[in-house]
């Protein structure tokens, strides 16, 4: 947040005590949930460094779980989330790790439900977050934009095939990031858009040849 606005200074309304360790944790959980696409049945959280050492005292563990369950940063249920009915629906556990090659406030989330996913993220200050990894792909997802994430086979023409779908709907692309495991193997595309995609576009992309996985993640509320 290099140039905060008036609103940034007089908000957010949030559950304390820490914007990076509590509100940031909720937002990491929430964005992971949105990427995963459903409430998981099982989650393992690995908290690193400062998240590991001060996480319990700051309710980082509660925040992450609350986010995974779809609660927002100002939801008063976060405080007692471990005792809440909401959290009885899934299995969860926490591990605490010191590894200084990772960000001071990093977390890994292993989610299991109708499918499985590995998601990593960092809480970078003032409640701002970045999802840094989805499965084997490096990404950079802040939750500021509606974002389409897809995994596909790396081959010529895929980017233009996908982006032409956006063009036909007159949607502006704010950013586009690609990563791949190896030439001709699995690749990932993360497309941030201004405006909103309808289900039609998402479904047509899902049905494209050599597209393995598509998820559309709506931006997080401030």
């Amino acid at each position, binding site marked *: 947040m290099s140039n*905060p606005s008036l609103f940034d200074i007089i908000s957010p309304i949030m559950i304390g005590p820490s914007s990076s360790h509590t509100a940031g944790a909720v937002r990491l959980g929430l964005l992971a949930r949105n990427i995963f696409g459903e409430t998981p049945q099982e989650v393992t959280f690995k908290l690193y460094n400062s998240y590991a050492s001060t996480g319990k005292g700051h309710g980082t563990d509660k925040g992450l779980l609350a986010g995974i369950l779809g609660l927002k940063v100002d939801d008063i249920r976060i405080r007692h989330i471990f005792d809440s009915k909401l959290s009885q629906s899934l299995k969860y556990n926490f591990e605490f790790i010191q590894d200084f090659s990772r960000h001071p406030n990093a977390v890994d989330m292993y989610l299991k439900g109708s499918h499985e996913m590995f998601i990593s993220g960092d809480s970078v200050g003032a409640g701002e977050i970045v999802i840094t990894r989805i499965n084997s792909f490096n990404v950079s997802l802040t939750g500021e934009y509606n974002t389409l994430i897809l995994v596909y086979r790396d081959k010529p023409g895929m980017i233009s095939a996908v982006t032409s779908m956006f063009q036909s709907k007159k949607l502006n692309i704010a950013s586009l990031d690609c990563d791949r495991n190896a030439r001709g193997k699995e690749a990932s595309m993360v497309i941030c858009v201004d405006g909103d995609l309808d289900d039609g576009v998402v479904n047509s992309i899902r049905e494209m040849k050599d597209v393995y996985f598509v998820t559309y993640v709506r931006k997080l509320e401030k």
Partner: protein
Amino acid sequence: MNSNIHTFERLKELCAERNMRIYEIAQEYMSVSNDIPIKEVREFTLKSLNAMKDAIKCGLASNEPSYSGMCGNDCGKVQIAFDLHPPMFGGLFANIIKYALATSEENVRMGRIVACPTAGSCGILPSVIVAVSEYKNYSEEEQINALITGGEIGRVISQKLSLAGAVAGCQAECGVASAMAAAAVCQLRGGTVPQVISAVALALKNILGLTCDPVAGLVEVPCVKRNPFLAVHAITACELALANVKSVIPPDEVVDAMAQIGSLMSPMLKESSQAGLATTKTGLKIKKKLFKN
């Protein structure tokens, strides 16, 4: 348009040129840059104001300790003591202290607060705006004006340094909150724009160098009790400014100094809990005990 107001000098000039108050400039800018009506800017502000009042109310009614057990019942103690022996500075003073403690204790027990500008400093601006408004019967509209004024002060400061303990120490969190609160009260009291900005300079100048050395890395000690201290600090700044006392060093230069001090401050004193209060004999003992669990 008032694009890119980076300095208090520019803010002061604009207010003078257009014969407007700080909140009017700020709400107009927010309205134009976000393409929303001014009414919506004020509604957003009212939502924060109401959440601040709710946090005070919840905090006054609770004695629940924080997870660590280090904080949570000081507001209760203060309420009982003040009922028996009113503080010598009177009821307004009592309320500022109570409200600041209520809010920051609510924060550490995972209650709902407004991070303004940060969660650790969340008690300062609300305590001052709410207590002074109750005392003087200021209307909701005037309170919104005050909160926008305080917010704009924080925004201008944040153009030069990040309002984070990890970046510039507590001077950038509780210190800036205090400057915002000084400006907000000065606005409520009908101070001129130069007086409001003077209040900011005076408040900031007198907390320069404040470190962030929390015990066990938690937003509790010294953060919770620091809130009432810096709320009262804001009132001192406001009273001096209203008496036309000026900071010899202009406000923008004070902010420059603060940014410089922040970058010169050892990382051991910037939210890393490697020195200061965090590594006192007692601080370390508390940390050891907490981490055993």
